[in-house]
């Protein structure tokens, strides 16, 4: 059972109190962007074996969206953080680096 701490209300919520909301840190390309950027925004997703950044929603709770950094192979959770950010906090990146030196995910490393 996956347990994530909601960074807004502090609850250690088990998976069934949450809803998975796909990949984190997507940059939106809407009207006016070129087709390739729009297609990438809509369809192109990371599918890593290892470090991954996801968006979750505390749907049966405070209702807020947040981000989680975890490993898709070990299910280790490196941390959760509020969604009002464009990149993972340094502290979480450091935690990942300690475990997976040289990791990278999209533009983050």
């Amino acid at each position: 059972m996956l347990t994530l701490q909601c960074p807004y209300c502090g609850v250690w919520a088990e998976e069934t109190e949450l809803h998975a909301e796909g990949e984190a840190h997507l940059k939106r390309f809407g009207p006016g962007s070129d087709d390739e950027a729009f297609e990438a925004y809509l369809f192109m997703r990371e599918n890593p074996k290892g470090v991954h950044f996801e968006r979750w929603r505390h749907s049966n709770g405070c209702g807020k969206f947040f981000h989680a950094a975890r490993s898709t192979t070990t299910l280790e959770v490196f941390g959760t953080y509020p969604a009002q950010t464009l990149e993972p906090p340094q502290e979480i990146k450091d935690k990942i680096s300690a475990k997976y030196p040289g990791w990278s995910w999209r533009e983050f490393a």
Partner: protein
Amino acid sequence: MSNVVSALNGVSRSGIAVVEETGLRGMVTVRGDLASKAMGKALKDVIGAGVPEVRQISSGDKGAVAWMSPDELLVICDHGAADEVVAALNAALAGAHVLVVNVSDARAVFKVSGQSARDVIAKVAPVDLAPEAFEVGMMRRTRFAQVPAAFWMNANESFEVICFRSVAQYVFDLLAVASAEGSEVGFFN
């Protein structure tokens, strides 16, 4: 004036715990900047309660105020007072970016009491109900089996549960089964 009735007409069932629909309750959703001075003053003036800390419920002479999310509170008061509370809060918060709505009739309220109350709640919600983990003064939004619900605990270790009125029957049936005679777990008592 229409005859206002609660969802299940005060139904109750008793087994290892007593489950009862408490009847009509005033509930007012307040959204806005919880840290603002205006919010603190408005709640103090209208309800007599302070802005609750994260996941807490505070009480005053005219009701209670529960923390729902970083920008949302739930004021709990007498059913008949809800419209006045909305008007008073709107007046006190005039000019601020807020939303104050009477949601009383969209909800149902249940009380779960008795020695096994903690066990009964723990059967249906993914929440740590150990005495050291869940105490008086806390407010917990979660799910009860398949539907959203929230609860807090009174001083006598009885629980008050709120849910949407549309699922009142489901929640009552669920709690009735969870508190059926002979279904003791004995984990918390």
